[in-house]
């Protein structure tokens, strides 16, 4: 919540020589944050400084001129300035001897009322507010109306407790009863700004005896009892309701007025008296009003402020320094707390720990536990006055996810160096992108309150997002994208599986993409010739799928198969890969198995085979490379129509191979190729 405080208005409560700039600085350091100090030129031609102050939700007591002044006084005094709080007093209400109007009958049918104060004022003279009120309202960005409305806004801003003005005669004409109750659902009411609403049920409302809603208390007035230009008599009204109930009504009706935002945060009901006196004083002075009834005051549950006991050792533990008792007491007293110093009887007798027994003022309902008190001491002492140091002590010995982050970082760096652009895209996708994953909409998690149509589903696959980005950037013909992010797989009665995936999408040929993946696997020393290999198993794609072809990417070891992820070819020539990082993690290494160099001569030759369709060159190579121990490598070097040329390296670990030694191996290769793959050698051996 932000509040605007004109410097001149603040001066009615704060007496100090501190300049606006200093007030801004020290309030920000020890109290509410003064986000801006603006200079405002008013309609009257005057200039004023206006503080734009952010007040945290637990400090509704500072949502007023008086509240800020109180805070500023305490803070400035400790920042080396002399500051004094000016107490303003208004006369007690006296009924006008010639006026006597009956108060409406108020009936309580709910326990959610903490206080009601009301009084009838007659002989209202409708006119404009005096210039100083208009100026100040303008400075704090509140619209200027007529004097009656302006006064209630003005007093609310100055003292921080909302109040309301009813047209007294309308209330009386509607039966003269105010029944305070929780609404039944579906009841219609029209607010002051002529908006039609219906209750959802459970909001605290005022009804007349006929069951019509005549106010949405603590949130907004209704048209049927609001003042207009013919209003002669008013019922000035201050209510304090259960904060949860106020919030409920305000949220349910989506009416977020200043009144609601204050009332839902437990405004101190003890403020009501002051508000009543001040407002009536202004009504009398400006609108020539006369007090026409006794003051009504219903205050069933008068609570004193909270009592909190704080051990001095705890203060030291939080602050890391030992503040003198005198200083602690002085700070708390400056904050209107009553403080008594005793000894903690439960503590060690030799150490005689002091304890502070604190009674907080009623407007500080936020002070509940010792940590709250310590916060007050520390901030007023000044966080900026506390030393700053890093903690000593032991370090955690476990790093359960270190490997994951290490691998993730390496992948990102490696791929970006290989000309892949890293992307961060939204995890929330459109229905179209959701369907592109191959999963139905029903097998996606969906937001119940999305902000935009294109961000509704939690994605099952990252590739559709990358495809969209690729399409949005058509100019680059060899762009390649990758992203590491989670996908979200729904599970029954549980959180979704949220596994991290690496997705890669490229406009280049799929062999280049696969090649980069192989290089990546080599970075982690996963592939080992003839022992650990990357195998591709094609899977049938459904007709409706956007994939033209799909395959599983498998890491195959002698005794083990691990599905790493998938390779997809899309209709528009894009090639994509999606790898489950947790699976990759199972096979990564951070160093190789060093192989001693083989001194014996290699014999290298090329053989060309004609392979029949459908061809699986990968399987062909994987089979033949393993067909003899002396075949060290078997690589594809050229493809011409159906003819595939391979470079074969023969090498023995214990001797130099002769041409005669190679002869039978070659024979074996050729016959195995024919037998298993119907591959025909081109030429003769």
């Amino acid at each position, binding site marked *: 919540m932000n509040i605007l405080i004109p410097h001149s208005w603040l001066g009615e409560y704060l007496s100090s020589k501190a300049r606006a700039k200093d007030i801004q600085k020290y309030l920000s350091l020890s109290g509410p944050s003064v986000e801006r100090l603006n200079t405002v030129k008013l309609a009257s031609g005057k200039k004023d400084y206006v503080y734009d102050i952010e007040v945290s939700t637990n400090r509704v007591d500072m949502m007023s001129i008086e509240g800020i002044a109180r805070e500023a006084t305490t803070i400035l005094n400790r920042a080396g300035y002399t500051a004094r709080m000016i107490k303003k007093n208004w006369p007690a209400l006296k009924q006008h001897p010639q006026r006597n109007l009956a108060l409406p009958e108020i009936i309580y049918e709910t326990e959610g009322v903490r206080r009601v104060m009301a009084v009838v004022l007659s002989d209202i003279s409708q006119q404009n507010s005096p210039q100083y009120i208009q100026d100040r309202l303008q400075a704090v960005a509140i619209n200027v109306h007529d004097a009656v409305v302006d006064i209630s806004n003005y007093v609310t801003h100055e003292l921080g407790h909302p109040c309301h003005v009813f047209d007294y005669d309308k209330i009386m004409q509607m039966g003269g009863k105010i029944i305070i109750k929780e609404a039944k659902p579906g009841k219609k009411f029209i607010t002051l700004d002529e908006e039609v609403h219906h209750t959802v049920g459970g909001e605290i409302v005022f009804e007349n005896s006929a069951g019509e809603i005549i106010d949405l208390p603590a949130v907004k007035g209704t048209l049927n009892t609001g003042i207009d230009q013919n209003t002669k008599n008013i019922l000035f009204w201050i209510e304090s309701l259960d904060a949860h109930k106020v919030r409920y009504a305000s949220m349910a009706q989506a009416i977020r007025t200043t009144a609601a935002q204050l009332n839902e945060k437990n405004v101190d009901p003890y403020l009501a008296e002051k508000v009543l006196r001040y407002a009536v004083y202004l009504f009398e002075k400006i609108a020539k009003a006369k007090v026409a009834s006794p003051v009504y005051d219903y205050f069933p549950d008068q609570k004193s402020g909270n009592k909190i006991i704080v051990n001095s050792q705890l203060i030291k533990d939080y602050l890391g320094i030992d503040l003198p008792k005198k200083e602690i007491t002085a700070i708390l007293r400056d904050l209107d707390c009553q403080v008594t110093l005793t000894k903690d009887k439960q503590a060690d007798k030799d150490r005689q720990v002091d304890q502070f027994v604190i009674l907080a003022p009623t407007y500080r309902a936020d002070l509940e536990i010792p940590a709250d008190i310590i916060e007050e001491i520390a901030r007023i002492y000044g966080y900026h006055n506390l030393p700053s140091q890093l903690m000593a002590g032991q370090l*955690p010995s476990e790093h359960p996810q270190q490997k994951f982050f290490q691998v993730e970082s390496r992948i990102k760096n490696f791929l*970006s160096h290989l*000309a892949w652009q890293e992307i961060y895209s939204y995890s929330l996708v459109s229905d179209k992108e959701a369907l592109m994953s191959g999963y139905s909409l029903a097998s996606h998690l969906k937001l119940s309150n999305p902000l935009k149509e294109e961000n509704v589903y939690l994605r099952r696959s990252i590739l559709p997002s990358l495809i969209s980005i690729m399409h949005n950037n058509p100019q680059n013909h060899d762009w390649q994208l990758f992203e590491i992010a989670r996908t979200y797989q729904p599970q029954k009665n549980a959180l979704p599986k949220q596994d991290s995936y690496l997705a890669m999408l490229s406009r280049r040929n799929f062999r280049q993409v696969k090649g980069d993946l192989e290089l990546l696997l080599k970075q982690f020393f996963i592939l080992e010739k003839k022992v650990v290999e990357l195998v591709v198993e094609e899977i049938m794609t459904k007709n409706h799928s956007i994939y033209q072809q799909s395959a599983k990417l498998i890491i195959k070891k002698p005794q083990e198969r691990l599905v790493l992820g998938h390779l997809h070819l899309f209709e528009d020539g894009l090639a994509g890969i999606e790898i489950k990082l947790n699976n990759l993690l199972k096979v990564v290494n951070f160093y190789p198995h060093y192989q001693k160099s083989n001194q014996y001569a290699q014999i290298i030759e090329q053989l060309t085979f004609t392979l029949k369709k459908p061809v699986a060159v990968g399987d062909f190579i994987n089979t033949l490379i393993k067909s003899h121990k002396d075949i060290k490598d078997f690589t594809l070097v050229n493809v011409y129509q159906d003819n595939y040329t391979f470079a074969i390296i023969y090498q023995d670990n214990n001797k130099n191979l002769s041409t005669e030694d190679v002869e039978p191996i070659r024979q074996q290769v050729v016959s195995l190729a024919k037998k298993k793959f119907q591959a025909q050698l081109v030429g003769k051996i």
Partner: protein
Amino acid sequence: MSAYQKLVTQGQDLFEQFLQEINQQNAQELAVKYLGKKGLFNQLAAQIKILTKEEKKDFGRELNQLKNKLESKLADYQKQDFASQVHQDLTMPGIQTKVGHLHPVSQAIEEISRIFEKIGFVRMSYPEVDWDYYVFAALNMPTNHPARDEWETFFVDQKAHPSLGKMVLTTHTSNGQVREMERVKGQLPIRMMNISRCYRRQSDNTHTQMFHQFEGLVIDKDINIQHLKGTIDYFAKEFFGPKTKSRIRPFHFKFTEPSFEVDFSCHICRGTGYIKDEHHHKINCRFCKSGWHEVGGAGMVHPNVLKAGGFDSNKYRGFAFGWGVERSYTLKQDLNIDDIRLFYSGNQEFLEQF
């Protein structure tokens, strides 16, 4: 001289002969003459049959070494050959290999992780889609509490968990706090860092529906406010430069007490709050609030949160802090990004500048 020695000598002679013959013009030709299929070395190798098994092995090795030496000599000459032919214009522009780019968010995350790892923080991750309990309730924010308004929460259209509540997208990284306390099961110290995607229902030039936060949580005996200040100062200087100042101011979060807002000094107006416009008039700095940037929140872990995580708040204390990765990154001096939606635009022109 044994047959073996004879062959070895012949090999060495061949190499010597090659050295005599080689010049800058004939490297290609000699390669065929010595190393070709019917080259002199293969002819010599053909005589291997006359050797014993043991000698064959040694001779093979010897011959390989000579061939290797010869190959490298050839390569040297070929290089010189090339160099001698053309005078190179050394002012020609370099030819650059195409590279990709790490996303700026990744760059920021790597930097932040490194900074905190140096002081013993352990990086962890937790669910991005989590139960209300971990995101709010366990953090001292019961259902319908007004404090929740500040977190514009996305809800997942799923049945609520009987005890953990609704399924939500994490609005902050603080869901990791109680999860981490549960994970360590009383084993201290905790120095946890959680950097993760977060989601809030808002979108403008300083807010995106998805963004990243990083969170730090320290729990141990004898932890006090000074340590929180120390950690924040340390980060500010490491991340923004040694002249950066940081400060903590009072604020309110339900899950910390005391709570702070963390500010870093503005590098654009040098912490003054004013800059000069084109007419040299003093105007408010557009980038900060009176000389300071609010980057995030921090505080001493609330006793109720410690309790929810199974720790006795009388014995242990802790502090936590959390703020936006993008926000922190855009405060880097002279980076000049004023619209954080760019990070998630997938715009090539933007991305390739990083």
